[in-house]
């Protein structure tokens, strides 16, 4: 697999680490056990296009949100995580 890092360009799979589904959002502090259980444990486990967290740890150390097809491994988009590029926030 090759991933086009938005900062580094196209790179080899070995430079990246996978975390998993990017859809679950960490619940607010007061959301309760059920909500956190859902966030930590339950997965849609999509057979098809899903959004995922990958880490370019062997490169620029950016967390990326990658849209990828789990049936074909085809990657359709790569975006930086929300906190990447914060230095350019608000200016």
């Amino acid at each position, binding site marked *: *697999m*090759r*991933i086009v890092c938005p900062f580094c360009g196209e790179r*080899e*799979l070995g430079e990246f*680490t996978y*975390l998993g589904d990017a859809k679950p959002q*960490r*619940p607010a*502090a007061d*959301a*309760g*056990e059920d909500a*956190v*259980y859902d*966030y*930590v444990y339950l997965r849609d486990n999509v057979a098809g296009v899903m959004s995922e*967290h990958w*880490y370019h*740890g062997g490169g620029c*150390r*950016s*967390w990326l949100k990658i849209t990828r097809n789990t049936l*074909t*491994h*085809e*990657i359709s988009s790569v975006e*930086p*995580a*929300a*906190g*990447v590029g*914060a230095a350019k926030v608000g200016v």
Partner: protein
Amino acid sequence: MAGVQANRLANGGLIDRSVSLNFRFDGKSFSGFQGDTLASALVANGVKLVGRSFKYHRPRGILTAGSEEPNALVELRNGARREPNTKATTAELYEGLEAASQNRWPSLRHDFMSVNQLFAPIFVAGFYYKTFMWPAKFWEAIYEPAIRRAAGLGRAAGVADPDHYDKAWAHCDVLIAGSGPAGLAAALAAGRSGARVILCEEDFALGGRLLSDGGTIDGMPAAEWISRTLAELAALPDVRLMTRTTLFGVYDGGTYGAIERVNDHLPSPPEHQVRQRLWRIVAKRCVVAAGAIERPIVFAGNDTPGVMMASAMRTYVARYAATPAKRVALFTNNEDGWRTVETALGAGLQIAAVVDARPDVSAAHRSLASKGGFPVLNGSVSAVDGGKDGARKISVSLTGGARAEVEADGLAVSGGWNPAVALTSYHRGRPKWQDDIAAFVPDGAPPGMVAAGAANGAFGLGACLGQGFAAGAQAARDAGRSGKAGSAPVAEDGAFSLTPLWHVAGKGKAFVDQQHDVTASDIELAQREGFESVEHLKRYTTLGMATDQGKGSNVAGLAIMAAVSGKSIPETGTTIYRPPYVPVAIGAFAGHHRDKNFHATRLTPSHHWAAEQGAIFVDTGLWKRAQWYPRAGEKDWLESVTREVKAVRSGVGFCDVSTLGKIDVHGPDAGAFLDRVYINTFSNLAVGKARYGLMLREDGMVYDDGTTSRLAEDHYFLTTTTAKAGPVMQHLEFCRQVLFPELDVQLTSVSDQWAQFSIAGPMTRDLLRELVDPAEDLSNEGFPFMGAREVALRGGIKARLFRISFSGEMAFEISVPARHGDALVRNLTQAGAPFGVTPYGTEALGVMRIEKGHVAGPELSGTTTAADLGLGKMMSTKKDFIGRVMAGREALVAADRQVVVGIKPTDKASRLRSGAHIIPKGETPGPGNDQGYVTSICFSPTLDQWIGLGLVERGRERIGEIVHAHDPLRGEEYDVELCNPVFYDPEGGRQRG
């Protein structure tokens, strides 16, 4: 010089007759020429019997001239370089080559195991599933060992491979598999367009079938066209032609695997060179011009030595000037097979007959036959007479029912051609059936890949050139190259007519998969028993699972299955194609990464100093750490470690702890950030102070621990355990970038920037006062416990000093920029000399942490909660943090959890071992009373006995209880007392003093 090469033609071929090469096969000496394969040299020397089959040990010869060879397998080379199952048809001849036949005993000619043929009526497909079941014990003791001994083909060397391998990356616009007419034309078009081109050819010569079949291209002989084309390609700066290189797989994102046999054509690789190189090729586009593979017709006796694929026979005659037979018959169902007759006649061989399954042989061929004086029989070969010395006579069933017999010592067979659809099918694509050639052709391909020429079902030379050229030009355009491709090379297309024929019914064994001895009747049996799916067929009969990967046999097998199950071939379908396209040495996939180079090695700043001291090193992850420092006269590790511990507890010692992960946490929100990742609070930590912190995973289990110091208002220095340095950095970046993007915080690993040493023992201050600038106040008031600040050292550099203790002693950790680490360790030795300073290793470190009851790796097992570790009170209730909510789940706060407790044998002389289980005293051990286990142990010099930590059910409530340590693995049973895990100075006075 051995041998006379009796079957070598006087002229012709692409061999270099000026370079004669001696070789041995089964101990007998022969000679061949540069440019021969082992197979062609054996052919030239008249060797017909080359191997034995897998199950029946039938005598076998050479069937093909390529990587689809099922029969002519040898053990190549000797000793540690012995390579089992090497195809003689692809092994290049070199001076001194040694090869031996395999799967036979005592010799190839007299193979005892050929008695298996007598049992052939029983040894049908899947027979072993139906028997060997009674008595049950006999399977393990008798049947299976016998089966295992009989199985397998060649023998592996059994000792370490002495050769080297490496792996490399290459990048291109257009990757081309194959250098036949389609491949070369594709390279021309893409190269001229300005594309970066890599062409992989598994043969050592470029040209593919042109090398055997010739032809006329652009009005010139094929050989001349090849050399002109190669010259033009050589002049293009970004075209790379890789011979001896097989493209074996296609992976995601346009990544391809290829194996280059760099030095397999030599007896052994030259110094500094590898045997083989694995290539990872990244290509924007790929043109598969891998050609087609001639397929057999299945008939009784089709495995007799002397029966050969028609195209292979042409190759031996035309390319290698070696004649597999003197009197050749041809059995074909298609026009292409006749080319073998033309080639054979051209080389002066006799043609015994042509058996053509088609009713309508062309007038041209008929006149060729009458000119050559051989009959053309309309019908099929139904049997071959012969044995280990080759074929003698061929029986023919003539259309209409009559029979004929033909005397011949060679039978060329052509059942048509199967495009090489493997590469295009590796992403689970299923090829489609094309009626006019009665073959599967690619139906789509992985992204960026296209097939051209024979691989795409176009068998005419003109079509191959045209398709290859068009595909190369298009691939270059797709890759963004806009140069002019010029015009395509031109050639005539020969006529191709074929009448499908897969199997000739008859008496005697008719082999589909020759290597695995799968016969047509095995396929019929599989169908009868319900194994109709092609995948069931493959698995039940082992069809196509041999070292030829079914290249020749698969389609014939499923065609026979289609016939017996009354389905069409496309309805029957193909099995899933799996890489690699040719078997690849495991060593190549490993490359450089073996032996000491398996993984990288990390060295601490004091490593070479420690080595000078004679330290024993231990692997901790990738690190080499000093485990202990033996001294002369010490009888074992325990004596050394005990000395080190005593030295620290009574004086002063130091230990390199640079392996801890170190992270700079910067920014205005650094404190707020740490509050969210640690269970305790860091935003209120004063500048100049350190604090122990504990992190959980989001599932509530303990993730890591360490000491984090506040060096400035907006700068924390965080440490992790050695094992978790990388994962914690990744986790923190996730928190920063994904979970808490609103925080202004920056993270940098500074693990390698700092050499860090622990200095511990009651005389620590005495040592430091030597080392540190006298202006620095190291008193308890000036530098209290958990203080952290920069200090000046004598001689000019600055260091960071942290008053933290893992040993429970008065201790500091000191860090200096890493290139001063070696100086620091030498200066520590010098400064500490008056106090008897002692370097200590990880063992002594571990002893002291157990004495002090600190948890470490064995307790931070990923299944323990903060409360299990006795650290539950650290969990802040005033803030959210990672893992807070899940840590509250019922089973994680249950009263009967196993928690950390101290453990010591009641008999002070008794040894304690990690992994022993804890059972209530007086009970018989069983799953119901298995209450925990010993996690960490040491011999405590301080307590003068073995002590340990353990995870024990309700352990904290049971301090003082005598329980039983049960260690059946090591045959040890003893009583232990559960105790306070802090064995040493529980009040903590020493570290604060």
